[in-house]
């Protein structure tokens, strides 16, 4: 605690020796140490405080240039990263390209190298292909932050989820969290499983059998197929967005059936012995995976997640920015 105390007007790192993460990049939470996660969460706490001040800008990344390389459309993650970067006084460039790099005729490697040639210090990448952030970290010198690589990982999302839960419960150790929905296609689910397990939480997943990936138990997540069975056993539900295209590819029968059997409703969560916290990475489909009354209820921490997301990204950028 008190590793640093950023004050907008007179900002300085109070601790001797600035904190350092083990790697130069944040590619995922798979294999990240507990110490690193704690460091990020603690650092985020200091930045979260800054966000409540009238002047929200601090100087640590002054002179650094960051490019947001978004090959997949994204609104909230990109805005969240951009805000975090600007509040750390970095210079920010946005690059948005839809579709794969191959269909554009330029390879990801060439795109990245071209941008790096413009003297970039850090790259935030969102891409539809698993491993693309790893790939990028091999071909460029800049620090790489994974903002979502296909169905693989979305580490800053899981960090902000964990931050939000830690704020609420004080610790993640022994906390019981269930991730509900399409686990197979979810990078949020994977990063949460890796991170929460490392932090000592008890993780389960719940969803139709067709949307639970092979061997998920080996990652340390227990599997449920009935939402009624899991609700009495957890402190928090992290509800994932269900996508209509999964129905079209034959993975579940209809959104109506999904809502009836897996939807998180007030009725269902009110049966829990103690209040359940509801998280959702957004954007939400009201009355599909989550009913509107739950989303707007006191159970929901969805908007806190969004605010905390900026603080988490500031923390990650700050910590990685000081590794150069």
């Amino acid at each position, binding site marked *: 605690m008190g590793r640093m105390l950023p004050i907008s007007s007179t900002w300085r790192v109070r601790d001797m020796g600035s904190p350092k993460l083990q790697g130069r990049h944040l590619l995922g939470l*798979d294999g990240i140490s507990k110490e690193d996660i704690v460091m990020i969460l603690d650092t985020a706490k200091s930045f979260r405080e800054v966000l409540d001040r009238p002047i929200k800008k601090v100087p640590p990344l002054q002179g650094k240039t960051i490019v947001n390389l978004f090959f997949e459309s994204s609104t909230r993650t990109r805005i969240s990263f951009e805000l975090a970067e600007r509040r750390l006084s970095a210079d920010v460039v946005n690059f948005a390209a839809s579709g*794969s*790099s*191959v269909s554009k005729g330029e*390879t*990801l*490697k060439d795109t990245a190298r071209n941008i790096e040639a413009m003297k970039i210090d850090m790259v935030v990448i969102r*891409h*539809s*292909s*698993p*491993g*693309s952030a*790893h*790939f990028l970290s091999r*071909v460029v010198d800049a620090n790489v932050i994974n903002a979502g*690589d*296909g*169905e*693989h*990982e979305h580490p800053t999302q899981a960090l902000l989820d964990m931050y939000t839960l830690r704020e609420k419960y004080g610790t993640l150790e022994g906390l019981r969290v269930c991730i509900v929905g399409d686990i197979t296609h979810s*990078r949020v689910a*994977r990063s949460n499983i890796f991170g929460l397990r490392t932090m000592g939480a008890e993780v389960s997943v719940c969803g139709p059998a067709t949307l639970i*990936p*092979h*061997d*998920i138990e*080996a*990652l340390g997540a227990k599997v449920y197929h009935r939402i009624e069975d899991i609700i009495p056993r957890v402190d928090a539900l992290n509800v994932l967005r269900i996508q209509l295209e999964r129905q079209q590819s034959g993975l579940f029968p209809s959104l109506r059936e999904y809502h009836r059997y897996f939807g998180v409703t007030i009725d269902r969560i009110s049966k829990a012995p103690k209040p359940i916290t509801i998280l959702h990475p957004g954007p939400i489909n009201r009355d599909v995976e989550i009913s509107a009354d739950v989303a707007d209820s006191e159970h929901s921490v969805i908007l806190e997640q969004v605010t905390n997301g900026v603080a988490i990204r500031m923390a990650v950028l700050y910590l990685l920015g000081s590794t150069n």
Partner: protein
Amino acid sequence: MNIYLKNGTLIDPLSGRDETLDVLIVDGVIEKVGKSVAADRLFTVVDLKGKIVSPGLIDMHVHLREPGFEHKETIETGCRSAAAGGFTAICCMPNTSPAIDDESVARYVHEKGKSVCDGIVDVHPIAAATKGRKGTELSPIAELVQAGAVGFSDDGSPIASAEIMRRVLEYCSMYDAPVIQHAEEAALTEGGSMNEGFVSTRLGLRGIPPIAEELMVARDLILLQYVRSARYHVAHVSATRTVELIRRAKSEGLNVSCEVTPHHFTLTDAAVESFDTNTKMNPPLRTQEDVMAMKEGLRDGTIDVIATDHAPHTIDEKEVEYTVAPFGIVGLETAIGLSITELVRQKYITMFQLIEKLSTNPRRLLRLPEIVIAEGTPANLTLIDPTMDWTVDIRRFQSKSKNSPFHGRALVGRSIGIINHGKILLTG
């Protein structure tokens, strides 16, 4: 040229010989095999003490890329790679452009093989079973046999229709030609980049489940039971139950054979964790259990052949996102080293069995002339140093492509030369 192979250990499965003998070769023909043979003329002497003289090896599963994809490999660079790897013969798969589904293309490939690398490596085309490898109409199988095709396959594209597969088996049976299936039920593998299992779940990559291979093999074996005169060969087996299915079919007397690649008995899907696209191949690297099943299949004879599925791709083609990268790795120059290191040294099979799987068995399956190391027969030989320690270095590959996951790997054993058609190439 007259060649005197001195003090080599002669391992010759067809004559059953495994002993230290000298071999005299005059004008490409073996003149004498014996102990301490006297050289009565001027010979080039090759001292092979501690080395092996084997019948010429053949890789029955190679992608030469010519015609159509010469930026990856040509018949010439492919033959050079084969020669460096110790192969005196290779079979090339028909997924070229145009495909080898026409006698002119088959002849072109076959003849071109004779004109490159001094003709020391024989190139035998495996022709497409269906026109354009589309799986809908039979290719001119009889004409292709006439033009030198030694087997039929739509490799890369499984023959999905049971009706077409049945007809291919029937038609090929008239010419005693094996039908080689790339066994994959495509409906189960769409969008897949790696084995489906714990690792794919961890990495978020779409999986290619082992059942896709097993289902197709099971179907084909039922067809084969019905078309008894046909010969069916499963390319690059990778899954445990595939080996079990084939083992049972063989015990029931079906005419089935199969091959495995060195990478499928060496690596597991854990290698994909690096997202190195040189670990992306189809069929994918599977689990440790599957690797053990491959070794056991080789040991008990269920797996007849080791073939590399040599699949060259350029660095630029491979240095892309994992899901975008093409499948396949080069294999010709690491095959012997991996086989000796993983199989012989670990005592799954003997050197004798290894040579059967790299020479005798594939030649028999393809109805190519037998190689017996005996007086009066043409010298078609591979010279192997079974104890040489070396490290794989892709920069030294003769292949035009360098896509190998084995770069930097320490191996034991490699080819030190080949002899074929009166030519000798020493590489050791």
